[in-house]
């Protein structure tokens, strides 16, 4: 039977991950598909998964009263969606909506957390990779906050 292991191995997020760890992770993985316009998760809901995007684009949105929903970031093929599954209280901080048809691999957060507790090497690898994603998004957020294209006098 064909497993998701080669697909996980080919995704940039799991690049060069020890095959032993990939083998552990694959049992927490499943193929998912979202239609354009469908919410993948919503703010405040339990964060039980994260997603490796394989196709399509996802909008991360926040709803601002009197302004409506604002897009704060667009993610696409090769990106990873969601890290709230890793940190208590395991709740989503934003809405994620498929802007187009989205194909992804969903990874079960509870399953992964259990495996990370059992194998701290795996836990370290995952946290290190998520720390890199979080660092990149923090840098991007800082740049957005600077409003560099605005007129400043």
């Amino acid at each position: 039977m064909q497993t998701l292991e080669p697909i996980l191995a080919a995704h940039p997020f799991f690049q060069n991950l020890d095959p032993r760890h990939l083998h552990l992770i694959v049992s927490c993985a499943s193929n998912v598909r979202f239609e354009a316009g469908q919410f993948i998760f919503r703010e405040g809901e339990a964060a039980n998964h994260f997603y490796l995007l394989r196709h399509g684009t996802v909008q991360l949105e926040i709803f601002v009263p009197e302004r409506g929903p604002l897009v704060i970031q667009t993610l696409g093929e090769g990106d990873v969606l969601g890290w709230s599954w890793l940190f208590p209280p395991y709740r989503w901080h934003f809405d994620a909506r498929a802007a187009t048809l989205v194909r992804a691999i969903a990874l079960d957060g509870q399953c992964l957390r259990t495996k990370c507790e059992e194998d701290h090497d795996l836990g370290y690898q995952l946290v290190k990779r998520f720390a890199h994603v979080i660092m990149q998004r923090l840098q991007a957020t800082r740049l957005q906050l600077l409003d560099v294209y605005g007129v400043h006098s």
Partner: protein
Amino acid sequence: MVYTPEQQPVDTAFPDPMLPRLYRVEQVRREIRATCTLALVPDNGTTAFSFAPGQFTMLYVFGIGEIPISISGDPAQPHLLVHTVRAVGPVSQALQQLKRGDVIGVRGPFGSSWPIEDAKGSDVILVAGGLGLAPLRPALYALLSQREQYGRLCLLYGARTPQDVLYARELARWRGRFDLDVYVTVDSASTAWRGQVGVVTALLAKIPFDPANTVALVCGPEVMMRFTTRELQERGLSAVHIFVSMERNMKCALGFCGHCQFGPTFVCKDGPVLRYDRIQSWFGKREI
């Protein structure tokens, strides 16, 4: 003798660089907020000049003052001198008020240019932020005019919001070409925007390129260029293959007055287009 604009002689010699030439406003196009594009033609008796992509001129609104503005038109059409101007000070605000037929003074062209010839045979990535698309547009015109001389061509453009996307119609046309990859992102948007939201540096991750055979041309606010050059280098591009267009307060445009000094360089004379390795150590220093 009366010339049509295309028949007018082009001056390739350099006349007195301190003497403004008279140019007439042929067209004013309102672009994004507080920004317009002026198409200028030589006024009676004035000779047009050729320019290289990346160069700038000093535009003189009589009675108000003079400012440096990058040329944003097609270098193959030197009779039509095009500048995109955002209103930020008295002179640029006065430029916004110009109407067809008004006459202003033009000195130049000044400064260095994008390495269009040297990039032949390479892939070229243009990274523009905000109004930084304007000084890069002549480079793109030049690259596309000899498209077969280059490998992959890619334009990455970041703007503040969808309403701040400059040259939107032209971007749409470029996006329709099969020989040019165009990616546009904005810093923030409502859900009505179907394009990308995020910073322009994030677009670099979307394009595979061979760092050994790629030249990057970068223009935008200095902070954006700092983040972009850092990202390009992290992706393996050497500083000698990165070119940035610098902006400083210029007065004489000839390297005499020193207003635009940036470390050991004068932006007006040695720049505005500078190879990144030559200024890398000065980039981001708050004392400069």
